[in-house]
Every structure is written in C-alpha cells, then in structure tokens.
C-alpha cells in the first residue's frame, strides 16, 4: 500500500505493508534512527513519537493509520541545533542520559506532557510518563522536566 506522510516537515511516500509498525518505517525506510525499539508491545516507550501532536508508541501503530499524518521524531523536536527544544535544553543542563537508548522516547513523552500540562508537578510527571529506563536516569528525568517547564514559561511566545 502507498503511504504518504510527513516526518519532521519532510514529505515521504513509501510502499509498505499496511500492518507494518510505524517504527520500522521511520527507522528503516526514512532512515531516522533516533527512535528506538525496546519491547515491540507498547510497554516501554522507547519508540515514542508525535503523530499529529498525539503521543504514540510507534512499535504498535500500523503505518496505515499514519496515512496523511504529520510525524515528529526526536530528530525533529528542535527547530535547529542552535535552537534546542526546552526539553533538550533541560536534558543537557541536568545531564540526563547514561546509555541514552531510552532517552529519545522519554524526551518525546516529556515534550508532549508539557503541551498538555504546562506546569506539571512531580506527581503529574510520575503518573503520566510510564516509559522504562534501565540505566536508572529517573531522578534526572524528573528534574529535567520540571526545569524544562520553567524554560518554556520564560520563552517568548511566537
């Protein structure tokens, strides 16, 4: 089936099995490797991306559902290397990553959280992000999201 979609502001058309998970299209066809595979069953969040602004675990999202939609991955989160997304700024400041493998998924989940809840409390964060990190970066993730919320508030509105 022909799938037309936009990933990080670039239009793509692919010929793909309609049931193929969006994750493999992003990674293996569009060659954007920042989005990761951890479980394949929507359990770990490593594959999180935004689809039309919604937070989606792309390992369990068939490409046919992405037809005509706009996808943002970690590579498209910032508008440029000099203008990092507040989440990435905070991640850098707090120095969150260890192995780093789960981090794209966490950052996509966190960026989405700040869209729907501008000033999350620590409990809000704990209750809404269920991604898995095996290296134990949790304390820094919490710190970074709270910091990113502050950065976001201080940003001039466009």
């Amino acid at each position, binding site marked *: 089936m022909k799938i037309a979609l936009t990933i990080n502001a670039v239009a793509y058309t692919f010929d793909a099995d309609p049931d193929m998970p969006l994750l493999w299209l992003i990674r293996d066809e569009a*060659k954007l490797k920042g989005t990761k595979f*951890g479980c394949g069953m929507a359990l770990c969040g490593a594959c999180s991306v935004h689809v039309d602004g919604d937070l989606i675990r792309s390992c369990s999202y068939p490409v046919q559902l992405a037809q005509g939609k706009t996808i943002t991955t970690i590579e498209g989160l910032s508008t440029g290397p000099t203008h990092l997304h507040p989440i990435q700024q905070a*991640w850098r400041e707090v120095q969150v990553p*260890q192995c780093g*493998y789960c981090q794209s998924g966490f950052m996509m989940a966190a960026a989405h959280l700040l869209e729907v809840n501008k000033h999350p409390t620590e409990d809000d964060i704990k209750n809404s992000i269920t991604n898995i990190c*095996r290296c134990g970066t949790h304390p*820094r993730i919490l710190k970074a999201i709270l910091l990113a919320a502050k950065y976001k508030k201080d940003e001039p509105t466009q």
Partner: protein
Amino acid sequence: MALLYFGRSKIRSGLSKLAAETTFGSGITDFDPTVWFAVNADHTITMRSPKVEMGQGVFTGFAMLAAEELDVAVDTIKVMHASTSAGPQSTAGTGMSNSTASLYVNIREVAATLRETIKLAASTLWKVPVTALQTADGFVYAGTYKASYADIAKQTKTWQVAQTPPLRPASSFRIIGKEQKRVDLDDKILGKADYGIDTDIPGMAYGAVLYSPYFGGELKTADTSLAEKAPGVLKIVPDKRWIGVVATTRFAAEKALTQIRADWSFEPDYATKDAIEAITVGKGDAVVMQDDGNAVDELTGDILTSEYRTPIGFHASMEPGIVVADVSGDNVNIVTSTQNVTFMRQTIADQTDLNEDDIQITPAFLGGGFGRRGYKHNAVEAIKLSRAAGKPVHLLYTRQQEFQNGYVRPNTHHILSGRLDKTGKIAAIQHEFATGSMAFLALPMAKPILGADFMVAGHGARIPYSIPHIKTTIWNGELPFETGLWRGVGMFANTFATESFMDELAGKAGADPLTFRTEHCGDTGLLRRRKSLLLNLGKKAGWYTPKADTIGRGIAVSEDRNTISAVIVEVQLVDQKIKILRVIQAIDAGTIINPNGVRQQVEGATMMAISAALYEEAAIENSQFVQTNFHNYQVVTLRDTPLIEVIIQESTEAPSGVGESPLSPVAPAIANAVYNLTGVRLRSLPLQSALDTHYRKDKRDL
C-alpha cells in the same frame, strides 16, 4: 555432605580470598600512542577506546585522562570504539567496573607519550631542543615558534615515538577530579548516537530467528512452506537449534516467522520449584571460601540462624542483542553492541569455518550492558543468514528472546548462623550459600578445576567484618538454563543475605545497626575505610535524628574490589506497598576522576537495585521462563523514584570502580528499613512479593 576436594580445599579458599581482593586488569598490552590516537587536521584528536561505552561514561573518563596529559580541552578529544582492525585491543572485555580504574595510569602515560612525541617532531622541524618546548591548549611553543598539534602532524611524515615521561602529580590536575559533562551528551540528546541497532548498510536485509522457548529444546520438525511463500522473504535458513528467515524488511521477516510451525523436543516438567530445589545449600559441589578460626565448633549454644533466597533475574537492557553481519567470501564484517569483542570473535571462529583473522568486529554504543552482552550472542546466526542471503543482515533479538533465550542471574539460597559473645559482639558466624554459576558460561573448562564458582557468583559472599571465627561455603547447583554475569555479579545476592543478617544480629544484641557494624570494623585497611564511610554517612544522612513513626530506616554496606558503598534507606508503607522515600548513598572509590560521572552511576545503580529488590523475578513453568516482556516482568518507572542523595568520600587512594558497588547494599537496606518500620523481617527477594505473602498469611491466620 563432606567436601569432596579435600586436598584442593585449602588452595581453593586461598584462591577465593585472592579473587575477592584482586582488581582485574584491563586486558590491554598495546600502549603505542599512534595506535590509540590520531591527530586530525581539524584540531581534534581521535582516541580509540578498547572499552565500550554502555552508559557508564567510560568515553568521558578516558577523554579526561588523555586531555590531562595532552594539554588540550576535553572536548578536543573525540572518543570512538576501537575495532578489531583499528586501535588498541582488550582481551578482558568491558565489565567488572574496572575500565577507568584499570587504565588510570596507562591512559595518562600513553597520552603523555603522544605529547612528548609531538614535541619531538616539533623539535626536529624547528631545530630546537625538546627541553625548550612547552605545550598548552593543543599548541606547541618555543620562544617565537608556535604551532598547533595538527600543524605539526601535517608536517610530520614519520613519527618517532618518544620515551614515556613521568606523569604529572595529582596536585597539578586541571581536569581529573573536576565536574565534566559527558562527551556523548549532545549526541544522545539529539538522537544522533549510533547504537548497534542503528547500523544500516546499503543492500542490507533483515533477519528473524525462531528459537526454542524451552530449556534445551531441540528442533524436531518444522513446516516452513507457508513462510517460504510469504511476501518479502529472501531465504529460510534451518539450523540445528533454530530456524532463520531473511526478508526485505524486519516486518516481513517477523511475519514469516509466525507462519513457521515448529515442534521442539524438550523435558517438559521443569518449574520454579525445581530451580529452588536445585539451588539449596548441601546440593552440588562445595568449596570453602573462608575459614578463619573455628566457626563450626564455636557455633553452639544460643545461635541465631536465618535463611534467605534471591530469585532468577533478567538484565533487560533496553536495546536487545543485535548483530549486523556482512559476509563476503571468507570474510565477515560485524557491527554490534557487545561487552566482549574477543569472546565474540572466538565463538564465531569456533562455531563457523571462519578464521579469527577473517572476522572484523566494530562495536557501536550499547543500549545498556549490565553483564548481558559479555557472552551469549546471535552473531553466528547473523553470519549464517548473511551467507545464505548473500547480503548484509541485521539481526535483533525480540524482547521475548532476550528474556527466554539469553542468560539470567541465577537464583540463590543462603543460610547464616551466628553467635554473640557476652559483650554483644559477634563471636562466630557462618555463611553457607548455594547458587548457579556465573563464570562457567564462558569458562566451562574451569568447572572441574574450581569445583564451584566462588570467583564470580561467590563474589561478596565472604564475611568482611572483623570477627574471630568465620566460615563461608559455596555450593554450586546445576540448572537446566544458562546463568551468567549480572551487574555486581555475586554481590547482589550475597550482600542481601549477609547485610540482612548483620541487622538481625544487631537486633539480637540490642545494638544500633550502624554502631553494631562499625564495632566490627577494626582500624586497618578496607575495614577502616568501611568504618569511616559508615560514620560519615550516618552523620550526613541524619541516622541518629528522630523520625516519624510512619517511616522506617535501614542501613547496609558492601565492598566490591576496593570500592565501598554504604547506604541508608527510608521507607513508608502505602496500602501495604513499599514506598521508598529517600536513599542516601555514600561511596568511597578512591581518587575520583569525574564526580558527575560517579553520581550518575550511583543514582543508576540505586534505581536498578530498587527494581531488582522490590519487583523483579523470573518464574519457570513447563521448562520455559514465564516472563516474555515488560508486562509480566515489572521494573521500576518514574513512579518509584525516591529522593537520592550521593555522598562522595574524599580520598587519595587509587581509583576503583563505581558502576556496581552501589547496587548491592540497597536491597538489604530496604529490607532492614521495612523491619525497622513493621517488625516484619523479609528474607526473600523480591521484597514486595515477600511482604504480600506475609500479609496473606496474616489474613489466613486471623
């Protein structure tokens, strides 16, 4: 059962002492600066790391050590993995938390040699004596002469490697010991870091392999007719113990795999209870690891005896095992996430017709290691698939295979007995424990010689306190599945048992658990360091300050190859669930290279330990692991995050590892805190299910 190896027992307990105290070498012999470094035209310096970056920050530590002697900024040094064809080789793999510590001197020496080599080249170019040259910020100076390292490199055809100069003293360090941002930070924030799974070679196809989910399962029959016709399938490759598919996409390969009907022969009845029975003190081969004084005779009269158990655990690295193999003729190029290039190369040579020299391996970033990537891998499968398809093949374990077809942390059983003297100090103590092995997966030939795996699975079993009579015995049981290294190796289980028991003895003595421990420390060597770390922790964490009745406080300490970790945990019960409020971790790891790196490792080890202590447990039914993914193998999430404080002990001792030592005291500290709060002593992991069992029993008894 009497010890079978009487004649060898003394040798073995001597070996065991040695193993506990030895820090392992780096496995590297080549310290030629031109093998390690390349000076680039863009003023950066490439450093090839023989140790892999799996999150532990080894690239950052190495860049710091090199920059210190090279007189450049840390971010000038671009660290990349050495491959089998370029850069220094390590035969020891990456693990044991020893990468930075074991190379602390070597890397500075090789960097200093490079600096002197560049100076030597400048002196030849300028005809100025070397002694007149100085270096700073990537430049060489002599009077009015000034050139960057890159310029010198450009003008130098053949390098004459200088003598290794004396190292700079710690008092002049500009970089070592200061806060340093990770060198891989930005790539990991931008999603640009390349892991094994990200390898993409033009023309690459995707593999998927069907393995037996059963222990020791052999392929009886398989019907692949449907899979052969499935869209995108290029090749079906049957082997003795697996069937592989190569297809144009991963989805096509996985879909085809579901259409294969395979029948496995296996012994069907094995269950968790059998693994528990197999790993029981008194079963299997025994080795006495420690025999000071006369513990057995001294353990009479008013004895306290307790039994502990720990379950089977998975590593659950977020990146599953991955190999990309590209076979052409008699050669293969491999890109992979591995902790042990040497082992992978040897096993490929053993299991295929390829020679070691024809196997090139390039490691990529690892999405976690934790001991899982030291041994069993899917490289042979990837090679066979690549050869059959005539293409490079990308082969990933699924999460289910990572759990069911990898190797696991073995379950353990511990019996501890102790007697107090009249003053309330421990007069005699005995630790008998049973475990599956961790070392024999890689070294099966060591089993008949060693008898039991006291070196690795037995690590941390010796009672490290100053007590007149101590005996420690390991029993190595047999399990029908593969068991191996797991972060901290034997420390995790052994520390849970011994440090829980220390608390029980403190209780019997009516003593404060912290003071009780320091009273058994003495004033020399590692025990002196243990004592001062405990005292410092107690003071900073407010051990002696009053707390609310709803809070339980527990302490535990451990020592792992010269690094000491002591931890205080505060817990609460919310609806009978253990909630960890605060963890204060103190660490003495000698000289600290990067305090930020140490804090990251301590925080990470704490979270992994909480996960293993509270929740993680693999069960067996019908000769297979029940757990297949994260829905039935619970690990911690953000919700479980307590406040974590890290206290780094100042020290001028040689640096030692930080990645594993902070993990082991967490579980006993939690158990001790739960006891402090509830009076319930939990003697098996995971603690939450031990507590659930306790409450269920309570209810029944009402």
